[in-house]
């Protein structure tokens, strides 16, 4: 039986200020109060500020979570000097590049952009030789006629009308322009992440056997809303000719479910190399924009985030996936914090003869607190780390007075955009691999929870976890 390992990671932030107006919350609020648009637009950040924003630099690997912990809050007031959009395991791309990616991902002529935007997009997109000739625009007159004569969504770039995405079927809400816009943005950002993953990683696109997409977008039509899949669609664009795939739906916990499944596929020999991926969530852009405006801070949900991971046989280069130390929150467990963390963290560790202090780093939902605190969500990671520390106290592993130290040394500040499945502990994987390679840590545990109740089909929450270990640990 092969020992599975996470071999490589890639992360992407796509700065998309003109997409914010079409986030779910802004769409509803702006319809009710159109005068808010000007206020919202004025509070969006320019490219340089987005690149220099410390949490974004952590997301792409130029800063570590420990570096971020040492930067005073608000991080908005402490931009990183000479920040680069390129990092060791991630990159920040421009909105023009995002439009270009959406064009080259569009196989049904859903999207039309202006010639001016197409020119910028061609200059901004790197690679994709077989498809970049799809990045073409139309003149302003044709675009205006298209917008005037068809059902769809008008798209913007630098505040100006620059594109249009058409509604495919007027009587099918699943193929409405807004839904297709979300799905195409998810596909495009996932494509960039998987492309980067394979360009810089240990395997070629043709070596990928299976793709597991964990994004939350519902791809399908009126007969099976959300019944479709983006995995194979993404694999097609990046040349994974020998792969098929399926989507894993589990709200925010999906990436952790998928990595466990990928590990099991590799261990069983069903597949040798599995790519777990997740595209950006357009619907979540500007989710807290009212709270940000109220608090006089920029509208910070201005980026789509995506990520991708190679899971394959352990070759000593990555992080070994301990399938014997995975946690799950079973239906019968109860939903108190104790019950959840007992099931996700303590039970799997105890089964393997370990305690909570045998894990060097825990990665929980890593929502950037600067985004969530102005609303009513508080500091999500901090609350979770305090709970983990309290659990260690109750188990007699640490003294009550050592809780702050536990949180500081085994936790980390949140640095992920609030993009649903993206913050689910996995933004730490790139840092974890680096820290294991340098010998800084031996073990890390990734813990994700999902709010199943949001779909109104159950009151339950969900959660899963896994443990990774340095390959130098023998």
């Amino acid at each position, binding site marked *: 039986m092969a020992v599975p390992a996470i071999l490589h990671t890639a992360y992407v932030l796509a700065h998309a200020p003109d997409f914010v107006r079409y986030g779910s919350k802004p769409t509803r609020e702006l319809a009710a109060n159109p005068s808010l648009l000007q206020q919202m637009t004025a509070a969006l950040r320019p490219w340089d500020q987005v690149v220099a924003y410390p949490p974004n630099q952590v997301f792409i690997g130029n800063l570590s979570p420990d570096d971020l912990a040492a930067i005073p809050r608000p991080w908005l007031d402490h931009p990183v000097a000479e920040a680069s959009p390129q990092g060791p395991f991630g990159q920040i791309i421009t909105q023009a590049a995002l439009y270009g990616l959406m064009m080259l991902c569009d196989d049904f002529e859903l999207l039309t952009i202006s010639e001016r935007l197409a020119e910028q997009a061609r200059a901004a997109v790197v690679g994709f030789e077989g498809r970049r000739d799809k990045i073409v625009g139309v003149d302003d007159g044709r675009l205006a006629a298209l917008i005037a004569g068809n059902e769809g969504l008008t798209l913007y770039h630098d505040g100006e009308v620059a594109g249009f995405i058409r509604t495919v079927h007027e009587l099918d809400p699943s193929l409405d322009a807004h839904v297709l816009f979300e799905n195409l943005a998810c596909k495009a950002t996932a494509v960039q992440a998987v492309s980067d993953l394979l360009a810089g990683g240990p395997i070629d696109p043709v070596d990928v056997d299976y793709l597991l997409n964990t994004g939350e977008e519902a791809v399908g039509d009126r007969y099976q809303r959300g019944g479709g899949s983006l995995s194979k669609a993404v694999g097609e664009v990046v040349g994974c000719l020998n792969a098929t795939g399926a989507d894993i739906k589990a709200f925010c916990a999906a990436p952790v479910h998928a990595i466990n499944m990928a590990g099991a596929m590799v261990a069983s020999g069903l597949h040798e190399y599995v790519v777990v991926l997740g595209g950006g969530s357009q619907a979540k852009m500007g989710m807290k924009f009212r709270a940000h405006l109220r608090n006089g801070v920029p509208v910070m949900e201005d980026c789509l985030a995506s990520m991708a991971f190679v899971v394959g046989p352990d070759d000593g280069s990555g992080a070994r996936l301990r399938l014997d130390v995975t946690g799950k929150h079973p239906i019968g467990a109860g939903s108190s914090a*104790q019950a959840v963390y007992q099931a996700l963290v303590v039970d799997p560790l105890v089964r393997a003869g370990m305690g909570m202090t045998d894990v060097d780093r825990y990665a929980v939902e890593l929502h950037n607190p600067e985004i969530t*605190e102005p609303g*009513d969500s508080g500091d999500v990671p901090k609350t979770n780390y*305090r*709970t983990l520390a309290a659990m260690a106290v109750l188990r007699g592993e640490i003294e*009550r007075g050592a809780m702050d130290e536990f949180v500081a040394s085994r936790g980390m500040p949140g640095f992920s955009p609030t993009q649903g499945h993206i913050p689910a502990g996995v933004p730490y994987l790139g840092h974890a691999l680096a820290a294991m390679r340098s010998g800084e840590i031996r073990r890390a545990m990734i813990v994700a929870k999902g709010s199943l109740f949001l779909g109104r089909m159950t009151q339950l929450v969900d959660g899963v976890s896994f443990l990774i270990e340095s390959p130098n640990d023998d």
Partner: protein
Amino acid sequence: MDLDDQANVNRLAEETGKDEMIVLLGQPDPNSAGLFAETVTRGDPTWAGPLAGVPLGLPVYHILEEEIKETMDPDLYQEHVGLMELSADVDEIVKWVKFYREGGGVG
């Protein structure tokens, strides 16, 4: 506070009567506990939900308050709330919930 929850609180207050109910919060941090307490007393401060401009003035408590804890089975309380009691900033949470309940200053 979730719009559905606001609608439910509003409906219960109308159906049951404000004198016959209390609101018991379980938020894990002072900020969100304060916001929820404000919503059911002075109205939705974000002006987004059914309680916008509706000052219900409901008696609001937090599960971590001593007077609530005293009414509960200690073993059950320890099982379900013990971890939160240990990890949360109890004093700050109670301070803000009390502030909105009593409609006065923070002492």
